[in-house]
């Protein structure tokens, strides 16, 4: 692995700014966006009696070996390449700006025009084509020496061996910068004093911290709790013998529970959830946010070809999902949306049911459950959670994809997107577990295929709905 580095000789540098303009021109940067900088440090008195110094704050990305910007990147767009450079993949950068706050040197800028971050990468495309970085090629003073420190015969490594070089690091902040400064002590000291690494730069921004320190552990905890709970409940049913598959009379009376469009939507949703959960978790590339094993992520990414392709798919499927939901909401407003919302209404019996259910879970199986409508309170709760999550996911997803600019909107959209997904995933896992593993709920599962449910089951579990249906049939 190569170790590309730059040495800036402040005794040679005259602060002419050729490097800055060359960089802006090479990368066609708009006004106000710079990958490197030269700011005059005019001679001022430090009251030490020493002769003042007129030099320049000259800098660029330090390509730190312990870079604080890499881990904070949720998508892994920032990474260290095989030549030791810290680079950004423009296709996968979502412009959240976590890395901008996480750089102690202010070396990263958010490109509001493109919705991505801009930084120096030692002109990687030029260097890989055998050229010098633009700033090095332009520098009239020859103050910049660039090369591979691992290559013993490079000019940079010779310079590195022969000169006393310093890194702009402090006791508080030492990210092992790979930009080294040469020059007289008072000059280099002035440069460092005017541009000290900012200790706050090591800390990720608050939304990223909330993500890493609160949401991610909370998700694992919740998931573990729910899965354990389910197995405990199942075990209890098995022990008590409640889990026996009920005998099915051959010609049982069935009543219609779902129509075809709802069944289609249900399974479409199920697929989307599965796809989005898998791709979404694989998009969390950084180790501080990762929720699925890296090997699994790699497998998925390889299936899609690349991370960028995966991201593209994730965004596209989200778009399709939004379109389908809108289609149902608009064209099925009366037929589907209004009844759905009505079914989700929570009434007094739901509270009573929840209370009774809680008592049963806590070990009093004898407690009777009050009669329920088409859906019981547990299902309603699940419906609420999934519906709100869906809205949050789509909203925050749109914000991440569409919003270009700095600020807290996109920074908070990321943990929000994750939190919504985490809650929904837990709810869906619970839902799927109950439908597939708990034998007594099989009838519900089958109803999602053919749309009908045994009247006997409905009478037992959804008495009020059963009565409703019976009355309606009677009227007809």
């Amino acid at each position, binding site marked *: 692995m190569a170790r590309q580095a730059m040495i800036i*000789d402040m*005794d*040679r540098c*005259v*602060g*002419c*700014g*050729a490097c*800055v*303009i*060359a960089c*802006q*021109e*090479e*990368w*066609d940067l*708009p*006004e*106000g966006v710079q990958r490197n900088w030269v700011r005059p440090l*005019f*001679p*001022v*008195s430090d009251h030490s009696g020493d*002769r*003042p*110094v*007129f*030099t320049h704050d000259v800098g660029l990305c330090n390509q730190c070996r312990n870079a604080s910007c890499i881990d904070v990147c949720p998508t892994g767009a920032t990474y260290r390449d095989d030549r030791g450079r810290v680079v950004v993949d423009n296709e996968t950068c979502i412009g959240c700006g976590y890395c901008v706050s996480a750089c102690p040197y202010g070396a990263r800028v958010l490109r509001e*025009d*493109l919705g991505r971050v801009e930084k120096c990468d030692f002109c990687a*495309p*030029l260097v890989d*084509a*055998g*050229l*010098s970085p633009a700033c090095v*090629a*332009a*520098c*009239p*003073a*020859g*103050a910049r020496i660039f090369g591979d420190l691992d290559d013993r015969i490079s000019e940079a490594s010779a310079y590195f061996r022969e000169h006393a070089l310093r890194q702009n690091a402090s006791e508080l902040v030492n990210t092992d910068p790979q930009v080294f400064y040469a020059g007289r002590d008072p*000059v280099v000291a002035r440069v460092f004093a005017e541009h000290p690494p900012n200790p706050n730069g090591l800390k990720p921004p608050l939304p990223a911290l909330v993500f890493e320190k609160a949401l991610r552990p909370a998700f694992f905890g919740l998931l573990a709790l729910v899965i354990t709970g389910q197995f405990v409940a199942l075990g209890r049913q098995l022990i008590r013998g409640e889990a026996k598959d009920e005998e099915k009379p051959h010609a049982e009376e069935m009543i219609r529970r779902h129509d075809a469009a709802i069944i289609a939507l249900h399974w479409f949703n199920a697929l989307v959830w599965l796809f989005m959960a898998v791709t979404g978790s694989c998009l969390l590339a950084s180790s501080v946010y990762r929720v699925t094993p890296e090997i699994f992520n790699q497998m998925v990414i390889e299936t899609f070809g690349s991370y960028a392709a995966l991201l593209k798919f994730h965004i596209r499927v989200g778009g399709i999902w939004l379109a389908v939901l809108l289609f149902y909401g608009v064209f099925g407003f009366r037929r589907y949306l209004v009844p759905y919302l009505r079914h989700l209404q929570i009434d007094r019996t739901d509270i009573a049911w929840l209370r009774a259910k809680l008592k049963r879970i806590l070990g009093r199986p004898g407690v009777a459950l009050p009669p329920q409508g088409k859906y019981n309170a547990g299902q309603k709760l699940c419906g609420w959670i999934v519906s709100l999550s869906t809205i949050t996911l789509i909203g925050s997803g749109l914000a991440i994809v569409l919003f270009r600019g700095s600020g807290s909107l996109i920074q908070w959209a990321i943990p929000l997107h994750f939190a919504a997904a985490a809650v929904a995933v837990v709810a869906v896992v619970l839902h799927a577990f109950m439908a597939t593993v708990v034998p007594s709920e099989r009838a519900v599962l089958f109803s999602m295929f053919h749309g009908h449910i045994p009247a006997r089951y409905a009478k037992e579990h959804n008495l009020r709905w059963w009565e409703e249906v019976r009355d309606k049939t009677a009227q007809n």
Partner: protein
Amino acid sequence: MSDQKKIQRRTFCKALGASALAPAVLSGRAHADIGVRRSVRRGIDVCEEIPSLCDLCFWRCGILAKVKQGRLVRIEGNPDHPRNKGRLCARGTGGRHLVEDPDRLRTPLLRTGDRGEGRWKPISWDQALDLWAEKMRATIDEHGPGAIGLFSHGLSSRFLSNFATHLGCPNNSAPSFGQCRGPRDVGFQLTFGDGPGSPARHDMARSRMIVLIGCHIGENVQTGQVMEFAEALGRGARLVVVDPRMSVAASKADRWLQIRPGTDTALLLAWIHILIAECLYDREYVERYTTGFDELREAIAPYRPEWAAEVTQIPREVIEAEARAMAERKPAVLIHCGRFAAWYGNDTQRARAMAILTALLGAWGRPGGYYMKSDVTLGPPPCPPPHEGMDRSVATGRHAFTHFGVAAQEIVEASIGRGARIRQWIFCAVNPAHSIPDFRRTREAMRSLDFITMIDMIPTEGALWADLILPEASYLERHDDVLAVVDHPRPFVALRQPVVQPVGQSKGLYWIVQKLAHRLGHDDCFTQPDVTGYLDARLAPLGLTCEQLAREGVHLLDEQQPFLAEGQDFRFETPSGRIELHSETMKSQGYQPLPTFEPVEQPPMGWFRLVSGRSPYHSFARTQNLPRLMEKDPENHLWLNQGVAEAKGLATGDEVFLQNEDGVRTGPIPLLVTPAIRTDVVYMVHGYGSRSRALGRAYASGVSDNVLTSRFRADGPTGGTGIRVNFVQLVTRDGREIPGEFEQCRLQRSSLPPVPEAVAPVEITPDTGAGSSEQKQEIKEVDDTPAEPPADNGFFSVKPEESC
């Protein structure tokens, strides 16, 4: 590998991302395949590369213009060009945006409002040229060719100045001479028979000691000069910087001599004194090549280091130590001749002192000092010499060595009033508001002229006053005359050629002047149908064609003799054939044959000498409309001594107004408070403060030093306008002085000791020149109490006979 690298650097063309700078996509290509080195395909990118020359400063670096589908996408340095070897400064790289500047002049314009108002209407080239020719003919017929005044600058303006000469008009004032390097060139030419060249023939990279006098390399950037400067420092050269302000160079110096402004000649004379008195000069060199050493030795005797110490306020030990340091390192000592030299009106004599010091160190024609000029023979210029001689009626005869026709102030003075001798002006790439001092007189002249024509790329202040504006294609869109470089160890020729289509209807100057000449019936001028034909004829003696040079960009010629060989006899181009330490030529024209120190007025308490300098992002007042450069350095600051600022209750960032002795007030300008400037000086960067509303970015950004330069002191021999003679006060918006001073202010303004008169100067009254000499009387003399007379009548500290 390195060759391959070079080629790749040239051919690399990036994919263009989205740009916030809405690009004006130019249709088609600049011209047929001329100049295009190669087309390169990288992915979907096709990029052409055209070698040309930068025009953002006099260094004229080689550039490679990268053009994609007719649009200029990048300018890089040309590795083949010996002056910049592939490197390029901020301005050269950022100059690309000149093509896309929305404020560029696109069509000929005719004034519709009053002069100075800036209201025009577009007209066609035919109308414009007919009008111009008609006005020219009328003026010449009625008043003769001497009634035309021309202000010109740059390589392309040679077409116009050559035609003016052909017409018999000598009134060609180049600010590059009279407002810049004229005194320096003349001072060196009188001494060595040859000026220092442009760029000066400094062999800086090999210098063992560099002495910069008021020269701020670093803030003042020419790519090649910075390259050599850094190389010399890297090799451990000793650097001495003489400057009242700590420049970037001074900060790097082994010794920073914070000199009292206006006393540089005293320091130089003291150094000459020490070299002779301590017998530290290069005796063999002086004996072999110079004349007038005895006169020099006699005349220099009074200028003792202790006297210079009092004058310059540099400790005597320091002066002596640096003279000895020079002697130790001779001949590889570069007494850098600077460039802008029109400071105090005694500038030719200062340049002479520098030249003499250089000669005593044996550094002229020696590695590490100055190298010798080469010769390049080109074909004839576009116009033959005048048929009937020159009309010299405007020259006052005050200045014997005004190389380029007539001094600017003479043209201005001859243009004011009804019966003025000069009736018509032409500005060619010159902005009078920022280059000629005392703009009030210039304005008065412009009010009374019959006709003013302005040729430029952008509507500067000069355009506001012009009757007719002709849009010139930028240096990226036109051919210029061949650049024949003789001031380089290896002579070469290089070509400036269009890399993109000219903006709007703008034209190159060859075309413009050709059309004018033919309308005036001068068919013996500009006989080639177009500029490339002319360039072919120009290059013919070298066996080159325009097409070939267009492709090569730079063509190196055979090396001649950059340095004097050991013990070689050499005939210099002076009348005596030797280096003239004592100049009979000066004497014969009525000037002191040996440099003398003339004290300049010191600012009274509460007043500051106004000194200006450069920013690495700007060239004069020409680059303030370029986005990349203006973004980096959008305004200038006023450097003010920290003690003075504290006494006045001011701090960095506070805004003040400036008012000069003539009541000219300008501002506000933010302060930069520093201990690293003397208490009697304030400093700002030149070129800001444009008053032309037609320049979107430049208008009203920063403050113009030239507005405050209402006085000047003309240099006798050259007529150069010494512009560091203005004093300013710091005032509030309504003109009240901001009070406050402290002890050091009085100390640093202490009166100068009298000039020692051990040896009576030659009975010549030195010409102090024209200009605003009457106005100068109004300044109160601060130094009315003479200091102690010199202790003895000034003999050498050590008798020369004893030591040598």
